[in-house]
């Protein structure tokens, strides 16, 4: 079932949480709302669910108006960051809850409920834990129970609010891959909120990057990573280095670098900022006229197979971090304090007044 978000605005007092949001989520998609805290992503999710009122705008689920409907009537499955399991009920009772509270006429018979709950527990691999209480489960297991509970009512869409936020790093990764697999089996339209770019890029079909109540960019994971629409997106999706320079006649000059920047050909001589990902910086022993900047190695940190090299450009710009492999480090035989040349492989140029 598709979700259409039309001109949604929301204020908390004088704070504008959402400013005129428009977004379409297609049937069967797994969409990540990605942004820092305070960007409005959770508020948007809660408005879709009906847990929060919008000041203006419309929500359509499967082409049907939802704003006037209460959460009970929307048929959305909602998964909370802190699980929100019913502590006084066993795992089985938790999952069965949504079926048991249905009005008598719509309530399935008891044996059907039992069958359905066991089927869902099998799906989340917790069949042997049916009689346990939430306090006897680990965080990852609790979240799977919460997911089974939400799926039990056969929701038209599944909404997940930072579903892995309260879990430790390993369980997080395991569970998000498992969620992706589950989605591939069920094809239920799903929206999840996260502030973890890895999570969004790995799991989602479509990533919606949000900042300060607005959508910065919507696109596939590769699209938003490779072609960020704004400095914010560039910054948010991974470690980045910033170089200041000028652009004229469609060519950016950053220190000794000359970068072809045709999209800015109409712009008169202006200050620009070049963004380069740490792993898009190579280090060389020799200068390559126009595509390298002389610098000095300040520190070398080895993190597993990755080596982070901090460099100070000779032209006085801020420190630059390069991420290279250990093989490359050995090949270069770098020492701290040495003079080298920074070679950015891929630079994205934005006009300066796009402040972050």
């Amino acid at each position, binding site marked *: 079932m598709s979700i259409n978000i039309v001109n949604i605005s929301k204020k908390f007092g004088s704070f504008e949480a959402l400013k005129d949001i428009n977004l379409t989520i297609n049937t069967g998609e797994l969409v990540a709302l990605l942004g820092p805290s305070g960007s409005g992503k959770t508020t948007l999710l809660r408005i879709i*669910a009906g*847990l929060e009122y919008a000041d203006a705008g419309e929500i359509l689920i499967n082409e049907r108006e939802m704003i006037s409907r*209460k*959460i*009970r009537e929307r*048929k*959305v*499955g*909602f998964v*909370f960051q*802190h699980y*929100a*399991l*019913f*502590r*006084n009920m066993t795992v089985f009772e938790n999952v069965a*809850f*949504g079926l048991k*509270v*249905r009005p008598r006429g719509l309530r399935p018979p008891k044996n059907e409920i039992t069958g359905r709950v066991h089927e869902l527990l099998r799906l989340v691999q917790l069949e042997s834990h049916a009689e346990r*209480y*939430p*306090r006897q*489960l680990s965080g990852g297991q*609790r979240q799977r129970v*919460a997911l089974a*509970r*939400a799926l*039990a*009512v056969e929701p038209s869409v599944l909404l997940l609010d930072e579903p892995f936020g309260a879990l430790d790093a390993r369980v997080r990764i395991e569970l998000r891959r498992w969620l992706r697999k589950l989605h591939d089996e069920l094809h239920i339209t799903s929206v999840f909120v996260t502030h973890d770019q890895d999570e969004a890029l790995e799991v989602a079909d479509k990533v919606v990057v949000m900042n300060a109540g607005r959508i910065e960019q919507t696109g596939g994971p590769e699209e938003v990573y490779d072609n960020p629409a704004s400095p914010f997106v560039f910054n948010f999706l991974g470690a980045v280095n910033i170089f200041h320079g000028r652009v004229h006649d469609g060519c950016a000059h950053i220190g000794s670098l000359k970068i072809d920047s045709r999209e800015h050909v109409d712009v008169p001589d202006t200050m620009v900022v070049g963004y380069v990902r740490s792993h898009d910086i190579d280090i060389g022993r020799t200068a390559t006229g126009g595509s390298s900047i002389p610098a000095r190695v300040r520190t070398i940190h080895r993190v597993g197979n990755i080596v982070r090299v901090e460099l100070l450009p000779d032209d006085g710009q801020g420190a630059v971090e390069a991420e290279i492999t250990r093989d490359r480090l050995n090949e270069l035989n770098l020492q701290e304090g040495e003079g080298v040349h920074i070679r950015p492989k891929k630079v994205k140029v934005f006009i300066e007044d796009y402040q972050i």
Partner: protein
Amino acid sequence: MNLSLKKQSILPGFFPSLGITLLYLSLIVLIPLSTIFLRSAALTFGRFMEIVTAPRVVASFALSFGASLVAAVTNVFIGVLLAWVLVRYKFPGKGLVDALVDLPFALPTAVGGIALTTLYAENGWIGRLLAPLGIIAVFNPLGIVIALIFIGFPFVVRTVQPVLLELDVEIEEAAASLGAGRVQTFVRVVFPSILPAVLTGFVLSFARALGEYGSVVFIAGNMPMKTEIVPLMIMTKLEQFDIPAATAIAFVMLVASFILLLLINFLQWKSGKNLVSG
């Protein structure tokens, strides 16, 4: 020598703190109460039974336990509602209402009793309204219940309030997203979570009501067989210097209260054992 009682613990001070606890309990609770046993042991069993089964005494037992039970049950409803309002809603004057709840704790109970008697007397502000309906509170068991409600309800509010505060609103949102109505959410999700606290509040309110003397004697009128409570019976016996009789009644009261509290504590433990974290 290695004491098997003490397990190795990084928290020091087990023996000193246990010692102080037991000493304190003995001095303040056990020794004074044991004198009741000793005193009533001076009676023969026949005499003891004669005292505690006297019709006036039996009537006072029935009244005390009955009125306390009714008051405690009423307080559960009023107290939970009040705690709910104080936790979940914002309204002007909330701080004041919150502070007013504690007033029955602080007020000398006799003051409360006199105030209630004045209000509920047939020519009092409230009594005047009740009289045409045929309800006469003062000098009736109803008056006793009113006084016991007054002194007991803060216990329920103050025990339920913190538990409600801690209860995540998300739990209710989850129930709503699964299609549960407000009533279903309260009955199936919220109430079981606060039940242990409600039971604690009930016990405290009930226990307080059983022992209450000051506020009740004014509104009760103390008519034999009708509005005499157990503490009053004990006082009466003491005033007649019939100390063995007073202790005999106190003994029954003590044992009955203890059994009741034990029972409720057991229920509370049962209802709360699945709620620890999660």
